[in-house]
């Protein structure tokens, strides 16, 4: 039977699937349920220093080729989050924290406290395309800002840092390089694409309350795969390939492009929390049929 386990920055995942940040990761109990449903690792919803209500609704919609969202980093803020995730001992998979800030200082202030929680790693999304003051809209996706923020957080934690990058930049390799130089332990590639917009033609209005939002799911997959491919050529640190993965074949494609682990977000819409186990099962079947014993052999296979 195929060995699906991967080692990501020394963290052992039973299978390469990682529940992406912002999907169901609001509470300890939901993380536990997702982990119990078969995710190789789970990521909490991003936390900011202060509590945020996020954008008004609609915040998440789907279209014929994927999803679109402008949630706007709703989260109860650092202090509440410290309480919520204080004890993670009964969760049967590694957990990743996700920290956002308006500048390097805020990132490190939050990360410094979050690092005390029993998360295995800290993810830094520098790449949200639809939240003013954060991510791309705050200029955090440039190589310079990426380096600065990563280096600032590196000073306050010994845990692995995953820098989450945007697909909407001209040269993603440079951003990943800057993260690596700043002390990142892995790159999460990618965050939502765009932003995009959907208009309700009867109402003659954009449907998302924030008007525009990040595009994810099927529409994002080819771009995400190319980003992972580019980053794999550029940096030495591992990659969590994320974007549009909804079946075992997609996960294998991501790994062949260069990913060590595979983020799954929008696919929960169709597949529910069982989607992680389903993807793992499909990967296993494929490996068995193709005589691949360890899934790690597939990492970067498309480059060879």
């Amino acid at each position, binding site marked *: 039977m195929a060995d699906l386990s991967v080692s990501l920055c020394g963290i052992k995942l039973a299978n390469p699937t990682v529940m992406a940040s*912002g*999907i*169901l*990761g*609001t*509470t300890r*109990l*939901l993380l*536990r*349920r997702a982990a119990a449903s078969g995710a190789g690792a789970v990521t909490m*919803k991003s936390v900011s220093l202060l*509590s*945020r*209500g*996020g954008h*008004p*609704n*609609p*915040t*998440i*919609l*789907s*279209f*014929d*080729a994927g*999803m679109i969202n402008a*949630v706007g980093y*709703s*989260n*109860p*803020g650092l202090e*509440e989050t410290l309480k*919520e995730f204080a004890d993670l001992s009964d969760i049967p998979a590694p957990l990743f924290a996700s920290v956002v800030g308006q500048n390097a200082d805020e990132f490190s202030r939050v990360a410094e406290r979050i690092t005390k929680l029993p998360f295995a790693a800290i993810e830094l999304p520098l790449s949200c395309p639809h939240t003013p003051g954060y991510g791309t809209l705050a200029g955090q996706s440039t190589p310079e800002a990426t380096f600065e923020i990563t280096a600032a957080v590196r000073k306050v934690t010994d845990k692995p840092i995953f820098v989450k990058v945007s697909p909407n930049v001209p040269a993603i390799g440079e951003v990943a390089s800057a993260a690596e130089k700043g002390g990142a332990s892995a790159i999460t590639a990618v965050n939502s694409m765009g932003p995009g917009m*959907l208009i*309700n033609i*009867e*109402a003659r*209005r954009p*449907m998302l*309350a924030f008007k525009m939002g990040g595009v994810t799911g*099927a529409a994002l997959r080819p771009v995400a795969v190319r980003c992972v491919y580019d980053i794999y050529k550029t940096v030495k640190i591992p990659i969590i390939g994320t974007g549009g993965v909804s079946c075992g074949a997609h996960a294998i494609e991501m790994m062949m492009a260069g990913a060590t682990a595979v983020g799954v977000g*929008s696919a*929960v*819409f*169709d597949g*529910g929390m069982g989607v992680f186990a389903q993807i793992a099962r499909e990967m296993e079947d494929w490996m068995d049929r193709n005589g691949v014993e360890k899934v790690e052999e597939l990492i970067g296979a498309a480059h060879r």
Partner: protein
Amino acid sequence: MRHTVEQPVMARVMEVLDDAPELRTLWLERKMKFQPGQFVMIWIPELDEKPYAVSAQAPGHIAITVRKRGPFSTRLMEMRPGETVGVRGPYGHGFVPKPNGAIIAGGCGLAMVATLKEARPEMPLFFGAKTADEVIYRDRFPDMEVCTDDGTTGYRCFPTDRLRPRLERGEFKVVYTCGPEVMMRAVFDLCEKHGVECQAALERYMKCGFGLCGQCTCGDQLVCQDGPVFDSKALRRMEEFGRSARLKSGQKVTLKQYADGRSC
């Protein structure tokens, strides 16, 4: 691509009925198949989008019943025939009808169980409101047992007080409930005591409505997708049921703080 497109589709408001001073029913032009207990997301462009029970249906039409609360419900109640709102859904899992049931509702929670009562007219319906003015659907359900806090109409007691003796007599095998969560918790505890199944329609702050954002969580359940109707087995496992809920930010607060005077 397997997935369905989840987007609000505009529906015309056909009729607006005053149920009570702060409660209105809006009839919408929309064909929909749904189970009692499911809900729809109602969108007012450039304002917000929130969940509402489907409170009634007619061929090609559905209704929602709105209680005046904040800016959104206020604007919704101001809608005039001819205006449009966005509708998506239905979402979630509704009530599972079984024999020998009773329905107990409080405030505009009645909207959530009204179509269940219509589907199973033989089930007794206990309804509680603060005062006579807030009693709705009287003509629709002439057999409804009405209780008010102030006794201005019907019995002066909580509807649970009317349910209790009949539960004790073993009249019901299952109780369906929707209303303020303290009431639903009391109903559930009563059912537990008498070994009777309870199905309660919970309310939590919702965003996506289809199980992705994790906003509407109660215990490890998603109210939008696993619920809004939960049975005794699920309710038993939910520490938060009757105790706490989460604000829009995800902050956990007491039910009191969350509802802050809400009656449904």
